[in-house]
């Protein structure tokens, strides 16, 4: 379990990084926290010619609030969020998700950007940020572009980055106090990748909601308009009207043939809905 040979460089600036990505011959991987890439290198599942360490780039550690939007640089760690070292516009939702990612040593090094680019379907940020309606900011030599997370995650371990591009920041919209949020994951043991994730962001006053069913084979199943899960209408009594059959049908339509798996995913989604309907945010029950 030792990696195949590779070159290692540490660019001094974002511009230098983008130049190097464009000019380096052979395959290139960026490394930030290395919590997924490290084991993949050791197992020789990836054998890049060049690894570019981006943890020293100040641009990727930037954090700011732009109006209603929180902008988190790609190299912000899970622990930065868990420990409250970055501002919050989500009423603690990000903090609660971060605090239940894997184990503390992983959270100390793992980054929000790295998690999104790795795009494991069972990863917390992939699902939570999609449910929150977050965007990603992508940088390349030709400029920047912004994509919603659901268009960025194109498949299991697949993202919409073009050659020479990298994820620079995550843009998280605010959760108003009238917006309900629920996030539940199911693991066989603490710290394990989830077997099922349910995430909902529901605005009863506006009659709108988003739901994500995650830890599935492919990219998370997003219901950008969650009203079908609630009998076609979202209001203050949404939780009571949650329709497990509608969720089950959505999973069947998405190709999940295994009834046991559907049952678990629907249960977890139902619990996320129930959590959203409780006035006080609860600690994540499946990952306390």
């Amino acid at each position: 379990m030792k990696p195949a040979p590779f070159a290692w460089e540490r660019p001094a600036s974002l511009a230098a990084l983008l130049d190097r990505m464009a000019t380096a011959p052979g395959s290139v991987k960026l490394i930030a926290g290395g919590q997924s890439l490290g084991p993949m290198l050791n197992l020789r599942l990836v054998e890049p010619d060049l690894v570019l360490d981006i943890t020293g780039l100040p641009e990727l550690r930037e954090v700011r609030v732009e109006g209603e939007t929180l902008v988190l640089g790609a190299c912000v760690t899970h622990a930065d969020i868990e420990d409250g070292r970055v501002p919050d516009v989500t009423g603690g939702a990000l903090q609660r998700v971060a605090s239940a990612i894997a184990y503390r040593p992983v959270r100390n090094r793992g980054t929000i950007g790295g998690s999104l680019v790795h795009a494991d379907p069972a990863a917390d940020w992939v699902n939570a940020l999609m449910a929150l309606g977050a965007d990603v900011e992508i940088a390349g030599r030709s400029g920047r572009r912004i994509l919603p997370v659901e268009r960025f995650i194109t498949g299991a371990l697949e993202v919409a980055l073009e050659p020479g591009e990298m994820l620079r920041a995550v843009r998280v919209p605010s959760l108003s106090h009238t917006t309900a949020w629920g996030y539940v994951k199911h693991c066989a043991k603490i710290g394990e990748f989830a077997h099922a994730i349910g995430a909902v962001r529901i605005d009863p006053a506006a009659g709108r909601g988003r739901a994500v069913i995650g830890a599935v084979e492919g990219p998370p199943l997003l219901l950008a308009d969650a009203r079908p899960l609630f009998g076609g209408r979202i209001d203050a009594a949404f939780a009571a009207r949650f329709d497990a059959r509608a969720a089950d049908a959505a999973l069947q339509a998405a190709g999940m043939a295994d009834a046991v798996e559907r049952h678990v995913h629907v249960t977890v989604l139902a619990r996320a809905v129930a959590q959203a309907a409780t006035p006080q945010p609860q600690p994540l029950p499946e990952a306390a």
Partner: protein
Amino acid sequence: MSAEGVGAALPRKEDDRLMRGRGQYVGDIRLPGLQDVAFVRSPLAHARIRAIHVPEAYRDRVFTAADLGGVQPIRAVSGLPGFKVSEQPVLATGKVRQVGELVAICIAPTRAEAEDIAAAVVLDLEELPAVHDMLAAREPGSALVHEHWGDNVYLETLVDVDIASAFDAPIKVSRTISTGRQCMAPIEGRGTVVQLDHRLDQLVVHTATQMPHIVRNGLSECLGIEQGRIRIVSPDVGGGFGYKAILLAEDVALCWLALRLGQPVRWLEDRREHLTANANCREHHYRITAYAERDGSLRGIDCEATVDSGAYSAYPFSACLEAAQVASILPGPYDFPAYRCRTWSVATNKCPILPYRGVARTGVCFALELVLDAVARAAGLHPEVVREKNLVRPAQMPFENITKKHFDSGDYPQALARALEAIDAAAVRARQSRGEADGRRIGLGLSVYCEQAAHGTSVYSGWGIPMVPGHEQASARLTPDGGLELRIGAHSHGQGLETTLAQVAHEILGVPVARTRLVHGDTAMTPYSTGSWGSRVMVMAGGAVAAACEELRDRAVRIGAHLLQTRPEECRFEGGHVVGPSGDVPLEAIARTWYRRPQDLAPDTDPGGLEVTAGYKPVRDSGTFSYAAHAAVVAVDPDLGAVEILDYVIVEDGGTLVNPLVVDGQIYGGLAQGVGTALFEEMRFDGRGQPLASTFADYLLPGPAEVPMARIDHMETPSPYTRFGQKGIGEGGAIAPPAALANAINDALGPLGVEMLHSPVTPRRIVEAVLAAGTGPEQAREAA
């Protein structure tokens, strides 16, 4: 009891270095010119080797079976009638029979470079059908792991004690029960560093093993060199559990390589090699029927047990120890009149099976205790009632059971009663009947076992395997300043022997534990021993250390009497002093006299001096029988299959406890592994014999949050046969938890029509069973 003697709860002296990161493991050894080894391993479970292509640039750094002239395969033969012998080649010849089998050795200055070379070697393999299902493997027409056998069965055994007399019992309960295949997962993997000592013309083999002397036997036989040319050094060992009680092909390969190259070589097992390539444990399958009266009294047990023993018979315990042991220990702590058990040790294209902590007992306990709960349900009785009816009673001790096992002592019903009281069964059942607000279901589970430990010559000579324990020996030597050195041939892989054996010595000699050093893990410095296995060391090495110290004490008294100008009969030994009628002399003074002032000794002094090697066997060598009752309370989420252990009680009897802290540590550690067996750990294989986990992301071990804070209650019924009344307890913690937890889960889910009969009881399996029983979430809540 003195403050440091037998029975004292002393913190372990070895923890000072181990907890500060100052342990010295094989992986810490640095030698000039060391070459690292990576192996080319078979990617297929079963294939014929057509060719091995080694790139020209690496010709002198890659070695295959063709280079290994004169090296013999590993043969672990059993003398049981009908046993079929497997030959485990050090490097594959002709065929590969398991994923991970060694095909070629690659050397380089670093492991990473060696892996680069290994990756460049190309294997041309013709894949053969993989034998991956032990039941199918027994059927005619199955592909064959060893063609010349004609079938895939290492050994078939049958025990029948009047089973027909049970057939008219009013209650007959049959179940198919099985346990998943596991890996042992010690924190430290295997590792071997071999160097040459030209002065002694010796191979010095540093290897993480529980049995240095047995490894030397095996290496000598495989390499065809005399034992005197091999020295085994096992430094600190980071957990063994049976995984470090087998000779690996890697060990033989490294020795051959060091001889060939004339320079030191190293192989350190990585986690992927451990999980996929080297050894497995636990995979049992039972078809079991219990016959009983309506009051729960057992009339008989009838069983067919199959064990997936893997591709090769592992040295020294052999491929049949596990299955054949099933037949002899299935009756557990119970007394019933009729019994039949047929067993099969089956060869498959998987890693060899080896005896993991608890050996066959964990599987046997799982099968028997689950079927006892099924009897209880059929009879409309609480599970404890069926157990109370059938447990061997204290008045029957010592008791010879239906398979001629000799239970030395104990009060099994009392252990069960104390466990029920501690867990407060009545309160748990009241809570259970009230139901939970969160929809989870409460269950109470019990499990009782007894464990034969430290069994010796009379038991193992019957197996006819390469290793039979005889007298255990220990050496004790006073240093010139009155300190004590102990030497034993068994080895600690985490048991705290440096503390507990010093306590035994202190009990007799009064030397402070801090001034006693245990030398072990080195064939050059210790008496022969079969090593640390079978929960035997505290009984055997403890007895041997006591015997050596007693002889040392008697010699000290004779010298001391001369110094006190009196006769030995006038003296007694007390608190490290020889006390005579008119004065006393400390051990330090006696040691100083022997070594440094011999002119003060009596002319007829014993020339043996203050160094003694003594041997020991218990009064009977059929083994001690420790036992325990485990009681568990769980909350099960029927929708997600999540199991939370709410409470866990262990009432155990290890006889006289030499160090209660160490015993508790053994029990907690065993429990953690038992929880793994019960709920998490399983190495699954696909239809081509491919192991489906290669990292701990896929092979789940319980973590700190998943292991309950068990409450331990000790009974102390001394064994009548051992030096201090101590019984072996090292494995027991891992035996009962799978049965106790599965019974608790079944108690919780029984009203939904669910009965879990396969370990591990995973969330997925629970949800599957709940849905198959047709009781969805809504019905589940109503049934609460």
